[in-house]
């Protein structure tokens, strides 16, 4: 039974990874025509550094992701803290309202945002992408930080207050340091959500102001070069690192390293 189980697992992993592996391999292949055998080369990566459009899109992606990460983490963490208060009225409703945005198809969110931003005069561009990404990432932050708060030992803030700490001081000196792994995990997740976001960015991009996923999509429509494999590989690597960091800190996906 055991060899069979192992073979099955290998098949599943192959199913998950083969397309991605081919893309990575072609990004490292010297031939522009996907010719085999593979000749290892960093030529396409080197070419990225000279491509102004790609550099600009990368800069935009990182900028939007960074702003999204900081803002969504702050908003989401505070929302999670508010939701954890024992005297909060209507907690069930408020908590339930945080979930649907995750389930709304991005195409619908994107359309809604495009309509709303045009109607209110906010318009399109990096600033509206940031708004859209923050709205998208905040529920995830609440979902990650909430259980972290619940896992804290009881009465810690009460103990701090009995020792003379104001509520703000108690939160800052006791709760926040203990919650830090969850907050950092949520921040990494928010960064990854923004970095990988395509649909909403596509709707809110303007000619010339674009992010990496939108640029990649545009590039494959107009003609596929191995350069796209290289830039995709870079984006893939960034996402994998972010998600592994998240998994390690949030204690999911088989990483049980959390203290």
């Amino acid at each position: 039974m055991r060899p069979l189980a192992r073979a099955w697992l290998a098949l599943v992993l192959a199913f998950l990874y083969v397309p991605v592996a081919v893309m990575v391999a072609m990004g490292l292949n010297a031939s522009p025509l996907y010719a085999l055998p593979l000749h290892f080369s960093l030529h396409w990566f080197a070419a990225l550094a000279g491509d102004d459009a790609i550099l600009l899109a990368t800069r935009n992606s990182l900028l939007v992701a960074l702003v999204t990460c900081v803002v969504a983490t702050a908003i989401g963490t505070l929302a999670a803290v508010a939701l954890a208060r024992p005297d909060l009225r209507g907690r069930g409703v408020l908590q339930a309202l945080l979930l649907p945005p995750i389930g709304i198809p991005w195409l619908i969110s994107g359309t809604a945002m495009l309509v709303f931003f045009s109607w209110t005069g906010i318009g399109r561009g990096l600033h509206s992408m940031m708004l859209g990404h923050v709205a998208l990432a905040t529920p995830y932050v609440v979902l990650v930080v909430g259980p972290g708060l619940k896992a804290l030992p009881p009465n810690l803030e009460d103990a701090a207050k009995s020792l003379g700490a104001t509520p703000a001081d108690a939160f800052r000196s006791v709760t926040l340091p203990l919650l830090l792994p969850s907050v950092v995990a949520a921040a990494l997740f928010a960064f990854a959500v923004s970095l990988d976001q395509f649909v909403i960015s596509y709707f809110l991009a303007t000619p010339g102001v674009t992010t990496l996923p939108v640029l990649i999509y545009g590039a494959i429509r107009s003609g596929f070069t191995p350069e796209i494999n290289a830039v995709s590989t870079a984006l893939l690597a960034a996402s994998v690192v972010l998600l592994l960091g998240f998994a390690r800190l949030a204690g999911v996906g088989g990483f049980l390293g959390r203290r």
Partner: protein
Amino acid sequence: MVGVDVAGVSKGFGAVPVLDDVSAAFAPGMLTSLLGPSGSGKTTLLRIIAGFETPDRGSVRIGGETVTDTPVWRRQIGMVFQSYALFPHMTVLQNVLFGLHRRGVRGTDAIARARATLDLVRLGGFEARRPAQLSGGQQQRVALARAIVTGPRVLLLDEPLSALDRRLRQEMQVELRRIQRTLNLTTIFVTHDQEEALTLSDTVAILDHGRIVQSGAPAEVYERPRSRFAASFLGDANFLAGTATADGVVVSGRLLRTADPLPSPGSAVTLAVRPEKIGLDTADSAADGNTLPAIVQQIIYAGAASTFLLAAEDGTLLRVFAQNRDVPAAALGQRVVLHWAPAHSVVVAA
């Protein structure tokens, strides 16, 4: 050294009343236990005194100063929680320093005070440890040190020993009493453990359904319970239902005397008799005091003492607790005579 006064405090959570017009005075330098079953309101009363809950009605005074609207962090209290609530990301020393820093004591002065307090709870040398590296009893000592290092006006303890095993709990009871006496600290101690309340306190207050049903010195409350609830929650008691006469109480045709004042003849009366106050004889020899024949139904031998379960003639079940100085000759099914002094028949409210 200041006292705590609670006057007319009521509190409900939603539609559920938890405290009903509670008034109590906690004397300066004394240790008072709030004893009651879960749901009796004892923890809520403690949290109102601490300032974590606001009473719906009534007031709290610490040292004569009304603190009903003063937030916790300005009340200058010390509190020990059932879960200890030590800060896991700080060392023992940092935990103890936390309150000192919040009250403006800093630097070497603060460290000297923290060390002296850790010595007082016999935890000198543990300063650099984290709470997770300590045993339950040691964590309890850190929690106590952290609560008393700031010189609080009152020390509040919420079932602090309930997570410890029996031996450690007894050791900590002695320690707690020693420290409380050394510092002469007004202390309020919430517990559901009657033995703990008796051995530890200057005063025991028994709570039931949001009211203090009786309070006083442990011996006073134990020897003269005023209600059936107080008699059965603090210790064991036998209850005998009868009818009042001019001389005593008639229980299934026998006159039982009591030292307590009796209601008008003819009214129903409940007598409480502690199991250890009752003597057990195989012959009707004990003439003085109250006597009641009964049949031995079960004998629970526990080394130093035995508990006898007996049935009186009217079917009332009784417990008798006897030290095994001599092994009593009574056997299962045997008819015996129970006897006790009139002073040990306590009239209680049913």
